[in-house]
């Protein structure tokens, strides 16, 4: 088997190759343009933006806008900067991602290795949750959170995102574990391992790729969510809502450099997750589809 190469490309001539690279580089530059504009303008003093060229490099480099966006900018009624909201987001995202991934893994394990009557229906219903638009559940969700006493709190947001995330995480793990040999589970049963032991010792250790996929997916979705944050955040609003309040404020001078810095700050965590774990992403999505 080792003789089989992983090379799937078709050999091409030199000219074709140069053309392909040229096109790819042009597209890459085009996609990088917004980020360039954001970074460059966040490092300029405000007059340079209002009076000058948006594309130009700063004449005077300064981190002032970043400092302001982080700790002193006016968000709503108080000049706190984005810092407290960033922390809100972290406190919401980390447990929500961890819990939905764990529960998704457990669901996938049960739905593939401990099949029961009607399991296909249960899975179908869970899949259905992936297709329900957020707006539909706003009012019932508000009622439920109210009854649970979690309205306007970070735990309330965690619950909302957890409920919404389980559908996707279950889908990912179920499909991943479907390709996992059932003989291994049977061998472990004969060896005397129980339900949880098989999960912890046999399945989880080989779930790296799909866990990364799920974490990236959940992290991006939950971090970037605006609707639930604005609806159920109360005073504990997440980063996205605060950024909106910063950028959309209709009073005072529009501090574009601060806005750009704030927007980058809001995007940094997802960017970080992609860069650190991104190479597993494609690998995980492809897992099981090709042998070897």
């Amino acid at each position, binding site marked *: 088997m080792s003789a089989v190469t992983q090379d799937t490309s078709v050999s091409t001539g030199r000219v074709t190759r140069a053309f392909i690279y040229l096109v790819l580089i042009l597209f890459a530059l085009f996609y990088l343009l917004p980020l360039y504009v954001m970074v460059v303008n966040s490092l300029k003093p405000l007059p340079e933006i209002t009076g000058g060229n948006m594309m130009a490099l700063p004449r005077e480099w300064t981190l002032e806008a970043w400092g302001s966006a982080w700790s002193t900018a006016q968000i709503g009624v108080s000049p706190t900067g984005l810092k407290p909201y960033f922390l809100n987001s972290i406190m919401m995202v980390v447990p929500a991602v961890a819990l939905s991934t764990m529960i998704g893994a457990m669901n996938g394990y049960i739905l593939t290795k401990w099949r029961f009557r009607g399991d296909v229906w249960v899975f179908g219903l869970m899949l259905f949750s992936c297709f329900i638009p957020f707006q539909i559940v706003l009012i019932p969700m508000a009622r439920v959170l109210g009854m649970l006493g979690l309205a306007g709190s970070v735990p309330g947001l965690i619950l909302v995102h957890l409920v919404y995330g389980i559908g996707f995480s279950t889908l990912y793990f179920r499909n991943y574990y479907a390709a996992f040999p059932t003989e291994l589970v049977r*061998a472990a049963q*004969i060896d*005397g391992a129980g339900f949880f032991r098989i999960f912890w010792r*046999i399945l989880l250790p080989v779930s790296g790729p799909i866990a990364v996929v799920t974490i990236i997916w959940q992290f991006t979705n939950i971090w970037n969510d605006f609707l639930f944050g604005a609806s159920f955040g109360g005073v504990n609003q997440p980063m996205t809502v605060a950024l909106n309040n910063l950028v959309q404020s209709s009073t005072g001078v529009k501090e574009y450099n601060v806005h750009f810095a704030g927007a980058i700050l809001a995007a940094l965590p997802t960017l970080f997750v992609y860069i650190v774990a991104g190479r597993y992403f494609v690998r995980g999505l492809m897992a099981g589809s090709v042998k070897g």
Partner: protein
Amino acid sequence: MGFLDISNVTKSYGSVQVLHQVDIAVEEGEFLVLVGPSGCGKSTLLNMIAGLESITSGEIRIKDRVMNGVHPSKRNIAMVFQSYALYPNMTVGQNMTFGLEMHGVPKPERDKALADVAKLLQIDHLLDRKPGQLSGGQRQRVAMGRALVRDPDVFLFDEPLSNLDAKLRVDMRTEIKKLHQKLKTTIVYVTHDQIEALTLSTRIAVMNKGFVQQLGTPKEIYDQPANLFVATFMGSPAMNIIPTKVVLEGDAPHAELSDAEGNRVLLALNQRNLTAWAGREILLGIRPEAITDPEGADRNSGSIRPLSNVVTVTEPAGADTFVTMSLSGKDVIARMRADAAVHPGQRFEFAVNMEKAVAFDPQTEARITP
């Protein structure tokens, strides 16, 4: 009462019955092979012994303990799977001791058992590797090692050699047989390969369509097959089955055949009770090795009958030459010495060892017992 008792066991999935009234008593130290084509129920039966499938009715007992409903880990069995089922995230050593660890055996004892088995199977140098870094044959050994470490009452093998290449399969077959002779363990082994069944077992259960067709020693299965299925499934090339009519010459029963040119040929039948079948059709079964050239015939047999026929094809296969002829319109294969002087298209004097011939009832397909 055997060491492992399978009594009146059936298995159904909904209204589909996949195993019918299986009754096998395995003695301690026996090597029982369940053999049959795919879908015959042999793996289902093995999984029921292991406790991985429930028993619809009947009883399975190990050492007189009823196993129905007992969890697989509490049956004191070990199983070797077709895919080996080694845990990919653990080293070889961890794989082999996982079962002991789950059963709460203390670490020093585990290490000792591991060292003993690793030495026995000559895999001591592999203990720190992951299964992904092993070759097929090494994985096979580790899978067996994992079973051996547990020191179980019964070993279950589920087609353990079918993922190996042909040469390695023959080597491992010998290894398993040696291991069994040395350790004298009780083994139930599932395979679809009749050669494996014949070489390894002390007893064979031939299965088809959920029924045990015959249970017996390899020699009984090979020489006295209970029915047409067992006769044709066991042995390669398969037993020649020739439809024929029984005629009486004097008072001795003969099989009436026709050679390639349509001439009438009579073969004296050894089985005396076939006189009762005079004038009726039977299926005559002759194994290829019972048809030879006159020099290659078994000298101990008192019933070598000559048979003159035209040779259709010869197939030299190294040690043997397979010769095909047409008898009563059926292609019949003979197995001869490599240097037998046979030529296609020519008439040849075959020698048929009628001691080894068997007869089947064309209606029931059961053997007509002498």
